[in-house]
């Protein structure tokens, strides 16, 4: 049974690797959408698409010039290396802005802290500072063995390996 839960993104959720390993290297990111500033014509967008296709784990990229967005799709069983996206956009001659991702994993509770156990990975992404409603719904999945899909904004914290996802929705798989 598939259930779609829509959450109002009122706070950021902090995601951090529990084992000190940069979580983006193992993040089960199946889709990422980045805003691109300075993108004004289709011919120019080719360079952005070409660079973004080289991002780790990416199989395909679609660019929407009208909306100034590029959507990256992961290959089968692969995870997009989101950390590479801003540099790819810059090398194409544009300016990266917000990134939204779709991540898949199982919610676990580790001494009261929620994290997203990634599919086929030992590492996880720590969920922290969630708003009460979001935390309650996520805690309901903790330890259930049920995989969920989380969408939200991805924002690299300065100088560190932690990332924030603002939940735009949680979906059971």
């Amino acid at each position, binding site marked *: 049974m598939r259930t779609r839960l829509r959450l109002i993104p009122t706070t950021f959720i902090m995601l951090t690797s529990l084992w000190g390993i940069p979580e983006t290297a193992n993040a089960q990111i199946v889709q990422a959408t980045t805003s691109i500033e300075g993108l*004004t*014509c289709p*011919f120019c967008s080719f*360079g952005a698409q*070409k*660079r973004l296709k080289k991002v780790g784990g990416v199989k395909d990229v679609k660019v929407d010039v*009208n909306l100034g967005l590029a959507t990256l799709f992961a290959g089968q069983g692969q995870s997009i290396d989101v950390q590479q996206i801003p540099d790819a956009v810059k*090398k194409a001659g544009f300016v990266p802005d917000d990134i939204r991702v779709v991540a898949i994993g199982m919610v676990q509770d580790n001494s009261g802290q929620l994290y997203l156990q990634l599919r086929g990975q030992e590492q996880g992404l720590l969920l922290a500072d969630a708003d009460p409603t979001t935390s309650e719904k996520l805690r309901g999945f903790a330890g259930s063995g049920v995989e969920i899909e989380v969408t939200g904004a991805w924002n690299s914290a300065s100088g560190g390996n932690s990332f924030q996802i603002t939940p735009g929705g949680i979906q059971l798989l």
Partner: protein
Amino acid sequence: MQKFFQGRSSRLGLSFLSAAVIMSATSFDPVRAQVTTNNALPIGQGQKLIRVQAIYLKAADGSREFEELSFPFVLGYGVTNKLALFAIVPFLDRELEADGRRRGEFGLGDIQFLARYTVFQKNEKGRTFRVAPIVALKVPTGDDDETDGLGRLPQPLQLGSGSFDPSIGLVITRQTLKDSLSASLGYQFNTKANDFEFGDQATLDLAYKYRLFPKTLKSGFLFVGLESNLSWQDRNRVVGSVDANSGGTLLFLSPSVQYINQRFTLEGAIQIPVVQDLGGNALEPDIRLIIGGQINF
């Protein structure tokens, strides 16, 4: 610009083709999102493009007729997200008819190498403003010693100048999803070869284009535009003496159309002379037609 004068090789009444004609054929702006005007839009790191145009130029009066068909191939490469390099490889077919005789040649002209570097940019969603200086060097790869049955072709009819000619320029572009405005300023320093020195040339190009179709911004964009091309050229020097029948000012207005999608562009323009203030008995251009396209890879 085209200029003719009765010079040293006019024993049979033939006229020289002006330096301006050669300039118009080989001083080719490398990356024109507009058809006749440079722009400062980005070429990403590692990105390549090929551009080719077919340019037809005609100038005639009662006794003289000049025609030129040129095919400049432009190869562009993004070294970094700010630095782009270009090579312009022109193939020329030019012919002059005067006093009942036809003279001309076809082949490779002088290749020009250019570097463009973005020094300022301001970007927002669906909008960009960029400024980029350009430096270039035209090298004498074209034949400058062609002959026919009448002897050596006059220097302005040769495919190449025989000289290394540097130039500098500046391009500014403001582009949105709806329209685009570009300005390109350039100056070419012409040096001497074969006792002939073409006059230095300054150019100012302006281009505005407006997106017509599709309004939903799916697939490619269709633009209509209006461009202006102003050029001034100093007088030529022949064996150290100033040629009074050379140099001058030309202004073209150029309506244009462009189709642009992610992989290629197609374009066309008609350059119509509206101001012609040329030296001496220079032959004034009648019209110039341009079609072309470019591809990304």
